[in-house]
Structures are given as structure tokens and as C-alpha cells.
């Protein structure tokens, strides 16, 4: 039995301007493996420590950004309940996608921040996955930064409070931390977990709908963060901030950009969360150390640069 019906961030589709540069970035630098293509305009990838068919789809488009963000869910009942409540009590659009390679039905809810949030529970075991019998740490040694799996995303849009209420009340996730508005009448940003991670998704209040601040990939240690930083230096990857620690979630991190301007994060550590843990709060005047724990200085770029 899971802690909630939401197991983890499992499938994300990002738009990119160019395949060639994007593959160098995601495959050769981050260390994902290509699973295959969907038609001419989409490429499926996965990380070495993920069991499911694939976790990231890159779609070639004329602008970068997020197409959809999906949670692997426990069972059909969980998803049916979310779909029914989203439609009947919240009045949000719900649609079902079938035929995504390797996946069963994916049920999407379009939330007031403008994002398509998906839920699925049936997915094929990947051709290459963590070993199951007398397992080694990995079947084939990780390459590049060696990211282990998807970790979380920070999504940005209007109606932040309403969307957070849906994540807690309808999806059943917990608020692990939040930053208050200066007036104390709501949240600037809220961190939500459906499992034992500090967050699976965070929602930032922003005037334009459907934006993504960053997509995060998991590393195992501060050493691996350092090695990832070396790879970013070696290959002139556009680094936004870090290596550093977040006050919020306590994760160790680097923010950087993919070749289309989508912000990525390599994330390690952070605390374990359980649903009985109290929510941690940050006041608006401490937001600098919440994000950039060492420098405590929030740069303008962090809040204004999104895709």
C-alpha cells in the first residue's frame, strides 16, 4: 500500500526547438537513454534507475515549455476518483489519452494554473531497467551526469491557491512547505508531496498560465552534484545557479538550462517526508534563503526566466 494513491512524477513531455542539440543535452550530458521515437516529432527517453517504459518525451516545436506533467498512480480507482471529483466538484476539463507507447490510458485534468496534469497506472516495464535478480547497482554503468530518475517540477501560473487546493483535496497530496505572500493571505509558492519525497511538484504564483520553472532530475549525493557541475563547465552548459543548497526541502542543487531554454535541475538529498509531518512555513522576507540557502540572495532571473 502506498502512502497515497500518487506514487511519483513519472512522465513529462517538454517542447524543444531542436532535436540534435537536445539529445546531446539530455542523452549525453544528463545521461538519459533514448527509448525510441513517436512519429517524427517526439523522442522518448528514460533514466537508468527507472523501471517504467520511459519518463521524458521531447517534442519538437517552435517554442519551448511544458506539454504535460503526469503522476504514476497506484490503481485505476485512484484515477477514477480524481477524474470524477475534478469534473463534478471542480468543473475542470478532463480528457483521456490512449495509445501513448508503453502506457495505458492517461487521464488529464487541466488545472487553473493552465497545466495539464496526467495520471496513469498501467505502464510496461522498460526494456532496460534496474536489475531484479542478484542485482548490481546498475546493469550498465551510468554515463554523463548519471541522473537516476525524474524527481519533480516547479509549475507556474495564475490561480495558485485554487490549484493547490485541488492537489490536496482532490489528488490527496500533502503540503510539505510554503512561502507566504507578504500580506499573509495566501502562498507565493507551495511544495506538494504524494510520497516520501520533500516534493513531487511545486506551484508558483505567476500571471501567465501553463509555464514551467524547472524540471528536476535526481542525483544521489553532493559528490554527484559536483561532478554534474564539472560536466556543465566542460561543455559550456548555461548554468543558472549553484551548486548550492535550498533552505526549502534542504535539497542540494544546480539550476541550468537545456538548449531550448527550459530550466533543468539536478537535485540530491533533501529530507524524507511522511504524511504526519507538520508543514514548514517561510515568510516572504526569508524567500532568499529558502531558495538560495548559502548566498541568501534571490536573483531576478530566478523569478522571471521561465518557459
Amino acid at each position: 500500500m502506498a502512502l497515497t494513491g500518487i506514487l511519483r512524477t513519472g512522465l513529462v513531455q517538454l517542447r524543444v526547438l531542436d532535436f540534435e542539440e537536445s539529445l546531446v543535452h539530455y542523452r549525453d550530458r544528463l545521461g538519459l537513454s533514448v527509448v525510441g521515437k513517436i512519429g517524427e516529432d517526439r523522442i522518448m527517453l528514460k533514466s537508468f534507475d527507472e523501471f517504467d517504459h520511459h519518463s521524458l518525451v521531447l517534442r519538437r516545436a517552435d517554442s519551448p515549455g511544458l506539454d504535460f506533467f503526469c503522476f504514476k498512480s497506484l490503481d485505476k480507482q485512484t484515477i477514477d476518483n480524481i477524474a470524477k471529483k475534478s469534473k463534478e466538484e471542480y468543473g475542470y476539463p478532463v480528457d483521456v489519452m490512449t495509445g501513448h507507447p508503453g502506457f495505458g490510458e492517461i487521464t488529464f485534468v487541466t488545472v487553473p494554473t493552465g497545466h495539464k496534469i496526467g495520471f496513469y497506472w498501467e505502464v510496461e516495464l522498460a526494456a532496460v531497467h534496474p536489475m531484479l535478480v542478484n542485482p548490481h547497482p546498475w546493469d550498465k554503468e551510468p554515463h554523463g551526469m548519471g541522473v537516476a530518475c525524474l524527481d519533480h517540477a516547479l509549475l507556474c501560473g495564475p490561480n495558485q491557491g485554487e490549484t493547490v487546493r485541488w492537489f490536496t483535496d482532490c489528488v490527496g497530496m500533502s503540503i510539505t512547505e510554503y512561502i507566504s505572500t507578504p500580506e499573509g493571505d495566501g502562498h507565493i509558492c507551495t511544495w506538494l508531496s504524494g510520497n516520501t519525497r520533500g516534493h513531487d511538484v511545486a506551484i508558483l504564483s505567476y500571471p501567465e498560465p501553463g509555464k514551467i520553472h524547472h524540471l528536476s532530475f535526481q542525483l544521489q549525493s553532493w559528490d554527484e552534484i559536483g561532478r554534474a557541475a564539472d560536466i556543465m563547465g566542460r561543455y559550456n552548459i548555461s548554468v543558472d545557479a549553484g551548486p548550492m543548497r535550498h533552505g526549502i526541502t534542504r535539497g542540494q542543487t544546480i539550476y541550468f538550462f537545456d538548449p531550448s531554454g527550459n530550466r533543468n535541475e539536478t537535485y540530491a538529498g533533501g529530507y524524507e517526508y511522511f504524511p504526519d509531518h507538520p508543514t514548514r512555513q517561510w515568510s516572504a522576507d526569508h524567500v532568499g534563503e529558502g531558495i538560495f540557502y548559502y548566498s541568501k540572495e534571490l536573483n531576478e532571473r530566478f523569478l522571471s526566466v521561465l518557459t
Partner: protein
Amino acid sequence: MQRSFTLRIESADEVREFICHPGQSIVQAMARQGASEHPAVGCRNGGCGVCKMRVTGGEYTLGRMSLAELNEQERQQHIYLACRVYPTSDLNATFIGRK
């Protein structure tokens, strides 16, 4: 060795000059010369739109940039995302930023 170029970037109430080496974008040249906190320095990869500038003089080549951040009318007025403008001569530009 190929010669480098001089960029004159006008923004708000100041004009700053930067040295740009062949192959560098306007924003790369700025970021590497003490202007990393300039509002034009964002994703540096043609996606976020914060570096929008009007090129007012000089030669350059263009890389891929997000069409969500730039319309055809702007392109006709030599308005581009400066992180994907690669000067091939001395160049003048005016910072606009993301609306």
C-alpha cells in the same frame, strides 16, 4: 586569429560596451564581462525571451529562438532574442526585454 567585435548595448539610461569574440552571442559576451545580472541574461538559449533587443547596426547571424517570444513583425524590425544573435562585425543594439 579572428578579430573580436565591439558591442554597444543601450538599455534604460546607460550605454555599455562589450567585447564579443567570433561565435559568441550578444548575451554570452555580456554575461562573461561583468553583466551577468543584467536583465538580458536569462536562459541564454533562445527560450525565455528576457533578452529581446533591437539590432540597430552591424552584421550578424541568427540561431533558433522561441516563436512564442517573437512575432514576424518584430523580426522585420530587427528585433530578436539577443542570446541567439551572433555578431560578425561591430554591432549596436537596444535592450527591450520581455513585456
